[in-house]
């Protein structure tokens, strides 16, 4: 066994330590804002966070109690509708781009998807307003779902594509060599291998949609009453936050913070669930 050249060895060792510390610091700095938002929302909203918040209907200013049960259900329905409209399109487009995507048409689609991801969400809201609300002469959860669906498309499409691209080519070749048709290779080999990544993409898309206010203002509108009818205006947490945060009344401000906290927590929980569901699947394979 050769002893390392001690001077050189320590130089390398110390470089390693310095870089590791720098990396850790960066991670900390990246995490601090999230932590701050989380703790601030909690500290401001804790007074309004109780069982009533989840089970009761909103009360007007001056009456104590009341919650956002309708907004919680409304947000869930809106995300559900958004996923229903946006995700199938995104996943199929992603598959197409990754598996068959070396032609001018696909390149155009890819470019347009990137453009779409840069469009401000309020513009998407206006589009949904013109396409759905005006012809139906009615604000509705359906219109809100369309807006959120459109917003989900770029994130979900591009992550699906990237994740499918990461599946090693040898997998496909091996399957094709066994005489399996290409559609089946995609469906049975490529997709399951990329599932974890795709789920993360879906998750990002849902998280983006859940936090949107602007596209809902002119589509789902909002509702102070209990409504799950997708043909009618529906409540959502973000629109409630928007309304309540502006008001000069402390109990509404507190509820806005509580809603913000619940929203962040909700996104955090979906994250955990999806991690759990996709845990260990094809671990060690793929990427």
């Amino acid at each position: 066994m050769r002893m390392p050249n001690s001077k050189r060895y320590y130089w390398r060792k110390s470089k390693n330590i310095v870089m590791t510390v720098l990396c850790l610091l960066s991670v900390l700095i990246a995490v601090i804002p999230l932590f701050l938002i989380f703790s601030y929302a909690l500290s401001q909203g804790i007074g309004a966070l109780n069982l009533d918040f989840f089970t009761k209907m909103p009360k007007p200013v001056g009456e104590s109690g009341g919650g956002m049960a309708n907004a919680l259900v409304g947000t869930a329905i809106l995300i559900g509708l958004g996923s229903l409209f946006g995700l199938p399109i995104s996943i199929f487009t992603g598959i197409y781009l990754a598996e068959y995507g070396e032609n001018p048409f696909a390149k155009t689609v890819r470019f347009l998807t990137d453009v779409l991801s840069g469009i401000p969400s309020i513009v998407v809201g206006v589009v949904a307003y013109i396409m759905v609300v005006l012809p139906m002469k009615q604000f509705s959860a359906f219109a809100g779902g369309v807006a959120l669906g459109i917003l989900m498309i770029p994130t979900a499409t591009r992550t699906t594509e990237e994740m499918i691209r990461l599946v090693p080519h040898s997998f496909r070749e091996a399957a094709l060599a066994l005489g399996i048709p290409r559609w089946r290779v995609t469906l049975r080999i490529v997709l399951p291998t990329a599932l974890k990544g795709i789920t993360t993409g879906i998750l990002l898309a849902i998280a983006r949609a859940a936090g949107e206010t602007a596209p809902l203002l002119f589509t789902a509108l909002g509702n102070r009453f209990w409504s799950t009818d997708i043909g009618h205006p529906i409540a959502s947490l973000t629109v409630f936050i928007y309304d309540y945060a502006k008001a000069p009344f402390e109990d509404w401000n507190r509820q806005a913070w509580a809603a913000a906290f619940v929203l962040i927590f909700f996104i955090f929980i979906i994250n955990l669930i999806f991690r759990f569901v996709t845990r260990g699947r094809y671990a060690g394979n793929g990427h």
Partner: protein
Amino acid sequence: MKSLTIALLIFVLSLVAVETTLSQMKLNGAGATFPYVIYSKWFDVYSQKSGVQFNYQSIGSGGGIKQTIEGTVDFGATDGPMSDDQLKQAKEKQGTDVLHIPTVMGAVVVTYNLPSAGKDLRLSPDVLAGIFLGQIRKWNDAKITAINPGKSLPDQSILVAHRSDGSGTTSIFTDYLNKVSKTWALNVGKGTSVNWPAGLGGKGNEGVAGLVKQSDGAIGYVELAYAVKNNIAYALLQNREGVFVEATYESVSAAAAGAIKNMPEDLRVSITNAEGKNSYPISGFTWLLIYKNMKDKSKAQEISKFLTWSMGEGQSYAKDLFYAPLPQGVVKLCEKKIHSIVTQ
């Protein structure tokens, strides 16, 4: 995964099922932010009383007018009346006239942060316009000290705070300055957002209130509720009759009473700089926009019933929520308007 999805689907479907069995009369409205608090109170109380749900969303006055024209709502709301052109558009698109029904009133107050001056600083229209035009720059300017005998005003710069976003509050405030100052009318004008000659912008009432609260020597304008709730001092304003008036529910109602004489038939009126000794000069109505002849007559009946309720019992909720109730004379005019809604 699959069973989870199915369970979720069943859950959602069952909710929808519950919903349709409990079918109630539901009306949707949208518009002005300023009356959102009292409207949410009214519609909550009224739905418990009558079982009719009026869903009101505060998307802003401009939005309320637009949606009324497009017919995507059953009623609209605004802090500034619709223009003749907008009324014409609504008539063309919806085939019916739109009525303006005043519901409550509000005041815009001039808040300031000047601890040495204490409360009840006096401002005249001239001085106010001068400050917001950037012509009066110091708190100890001769024009300010002349109307504030006995107050020690420091040799300090005035920091002007205004709204950076479009708003009904700005609309009322600039409407007032437009009436009292020729220089203002010529150079700035009125509207929901104007090209401010001086000062810093803050977003929303809370933004301006924050700016004023944090900066020594600042002056700004906010809705009365924000000044009271945030405990910031606001100035006495000199009205048309030369009296310095504090913004209170009474002085705002007085402004409306002073305006009754010249009330146009369609109730679209600005009550800034109104007549009357006790009138607070920067006051304004907020209106509900109602279709005179709705296609759905059962909805028209419910709206008419609700409006009648709002003119009576509804008015009693105003003061607690920092709005001024309508004076009796205006209520009479409104009731006449409400009767003109076609319900058969």
